[in-house]
């Protein structure tokens, strides 16, 4: 283990990532998970040298692939670290080299080999109307694939608002009868909603799983409390402006330039549970309120209906 870790750090340094930067990242993941700092070395161990990489089967249903793309934006670990050294991604339509029959064979072989042991990551909603004919892959409906694969997983992680709550295609009038995973298959997935979800929260969930051997504590909607325990509003850096009654009432105005509260512009932060203000996106670069745009509530069930019109104040 020690030797492997040493090699791991050498490899990191070759890539221009210092051990210090890596430990800083592990501290960030540990903090995101809500664990004490004594867990930092253990989190580092997860990334450094798992004995056998946990098998992941990643299913795509009704979605836009934005959640896969979000995962590819991960840094520390970079996506190649995730794929080559941390996880064993047995099936993922966007990155896998195999095609057609060979791809289908991979899926079936992986489900069989890792039955009750693999992590199933689901991206996208499942069409249920007219027996699910609105979405097919490899000649089978998404519904059939979901029914076969998902119940055989050790743990299910639903990412994005589509897999968790049905997402945009489930908005009224929901032409294809789209639903989230737990509304179709009798399992309780770890739900990581968002449009897209923040990849740091998937990494946090996976680390939790590898480290503790179990899924993290969840709220009533299946969302990990480490990420979805507080509202945007409660963590918002513009909160003091709300308390002082300092509001933006027009984009591009002096108040907007001063960074006043976006409540009057329709911000859904007070009713939205997520860690955007703290974790931010793209390596901590920014998040919607920082870019002057109200929160649209994308981690809440049915937000395409319940949070719209987006620019109407709550």
């Amino acid at each position, binding site marked *: 283990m020690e030797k492997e870790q040493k090699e791991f750090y050498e*490899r990191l340094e*070759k*890539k221009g990532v210092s051990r210090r930067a890596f430990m800083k990242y592990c501290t960030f993941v540990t903090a995101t998970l809500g664990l004490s700092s004594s867990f930092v070395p253990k989190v580092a161990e997860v990334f450094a040298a798992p004995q056998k990489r946990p098998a992941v089967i990643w299913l795509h249903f*009704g*979605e*836009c*692939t*934005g959640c896969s*793309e979000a995962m*590819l934006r991960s*840094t520390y670990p*970079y996506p*190649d670290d995730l*794929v080559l*050294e941390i996880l*064993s*991604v*047995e099936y*993922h*339509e*966007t990155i*896998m*080299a*195999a*095609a057609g*029959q*060979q*791809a289908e*064979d991979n899926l079936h072989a992986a489900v069989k080999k890792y039955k009750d042991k693999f992590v199933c990551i689901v991206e996208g909603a499942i069409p249920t109307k*007219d027996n699910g*004919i*609105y*979405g097919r*892959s*490899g*000649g089978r409906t998404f519904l059939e694939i979901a029914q076969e694969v998902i119940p055989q997983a050790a743990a299910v992680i639903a990412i994005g608002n589509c897999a968790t709550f049905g*997402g*945009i*295609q489930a*908005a*009224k*009038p929901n*032409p294809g009868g*789209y639903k989230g995973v737990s509304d179709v298959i009798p399992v309780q997935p770890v739900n990581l909603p968002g*449009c*897209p979800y923040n990849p740091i929260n998937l990494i946090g969930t996976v680390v939790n799983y590898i480290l503790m051997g179990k899924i993290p504590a969840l709220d009533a909607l299946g969302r990990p409390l480490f990420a979805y325990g507080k509202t945007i509003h409660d963590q918002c850096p513009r909160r003091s402006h709300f308390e002082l009654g300092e509001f933006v009432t*027009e*984009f*591009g105005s002096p108040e907007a*330039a001063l960074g006043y509260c976006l409540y009057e512009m329709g911000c859904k932060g007070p009713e939205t549970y997520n860690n955007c203000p703290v974790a931010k*996106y*793209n*390596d901590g*670069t920014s998040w*919607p309120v920082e*870019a*002057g745009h109200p929160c*649209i509530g994308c981690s809440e069930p049915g937000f395409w209906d319940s949070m*719209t019109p*987006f620019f109407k104040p709550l």
Partner: protein
Amino acid sequence: MGNRIIVDPITRIEGHLRIEVEVEGGKVKNAWSSANMFRGIELILQGRDPRDAPLFTQRSCGVCTYVHYLASVRALEAAIGVRVPENARLIRNLLHGAQFQHDHIVHFYHLHALDWVDIVSALKADPKKTATLSENSNNAEWGGSAYFKGIQERLQTFVDSGQLGPINNAYWGHSAYKLPPEGNLMAAAHYIEALRLQSRTARMHALFGAKNPHLQSLVAGGVTCVRSLTADKLTEFLHLWKETQAFVENVYIPDLITVASFYKDWGAIGGATNFLAWGDLPQSDKEPESLFLPRGWIANRDFQNVRMPDQEKVTEHVVHAWYEDGSPKHPYQGETKPRPGDYETGGDMSTWKFAKPQTGKYSWFKAPRYEGEACEVGPLARVLVGYGLGKKEFKDVVDSTLKKLDIPATALFSTLGRTAARGLETLVIGTAMENWIMELVENVKNDDTKTYEPWEMPDNAMGHGLNDVARGALGHWIEIEDKKIKNYQMVVPSTWNLGPRCEGGKLGPVEEALIGTPIADPKRPLEILRTVHSFDPCIACGVHVIDPDSNQVYDIKVL
């Protein structure tokens, strides 16, 4: 106007595509492109607040994020009649430029490369020779035999683990792979470097757009990110642009030339006939005159004769799509009702053939046509239009590339030409971005931070936005009634390129392009993937190969 159900373009783009071809004498004789998912976003939009449309339509595609957001905001602005401030135009162009860079790099290295690069062969490469190849062919900042040895060892460790994950069971060793082991190792290393680079490239979006994928800073009238016009954010953007542009110049373009030199025969395979570009990246209020990527239409490959297209001449055909029959219609009049029953008559899709359904319908895609003709859209169309119009930016890079590869201009009409055009326009757009950043800096320096123009929602209005995005010509059409969306239509790149036959039985571009493609092994139709991927459908597609000799049916999913 009846009950309107519109094929959701996201569905079309991100839905699973099925390609069915007929092979005879080792070549594709006939082809059908069939989209396999329906989401219905345009239908979902009806009755909603028009201001919400950009946020909804952006979810059409997360790979090609931002572009529907932009297209929708533009359609809305056209309907309400508002002009955006200079800074908003510049920021939108910069975000769009970054999207082109990001999208094309990811396509070349992560979605398309494995059609040309045999990863397993890389394990046999001599790292020293690979280092020499690399030094002679590109200006990458990394290299040397120790570097390539490290990459090879990393791959070997991965293979030895027995957990092959994403590289398991592919077409490795196929006779159509032509690169020597050293070329394959170099490409494998660049695959990894590009994977890391793209996450930094995408940060350009976060700087002015909050996050990527799915930006959140555009509104009709401008942008919301007035507080991002600061020295630190501008500098960070400039730095990320520089890093990306250096990669394009020093690695992407040289790799393109290196790989292409082994596959020159693909300069005669996979071409289409007509080309359409709406153009994009406005340099002022004037459209189409000021578009950096020019607007143009080319018929019968006559690129010396670029004509100005008119959106009035766009129609969508449904005769071969799973909708109630009707005459071809312009997007404003589009009238479609899904007939999923036809889909079911296909029965078990593992043995389903196009000929079976009585109706002749075989896709969730409608077939867009310009003046009744199928048109290829995307990088090749844009480069041909720019080249045909004699625009220097395009002419220089196209001519020098043709010279380097020693191939004629007619070789552009091919799978190779399409893939090359994508790289060349990445270079051209990236080069232009520097000026836009500096213009923005200059404005901020002069205390011009205006980013938004106020407006009022009219009771009734109609408008459209014509755009050209990574995958091609994109149009959004909106009709507003009583301040609500009455109708919304999107005609997207992948329906142009991957749509089915039209009323006259004319094939869609990818169907046409596939005909004549050599197939060495019907069980491993690598060649089909090359042409289909060259259009960058960027989705999981189903390819269905029929071998009439054995009547054997193979299901091949293009990923």
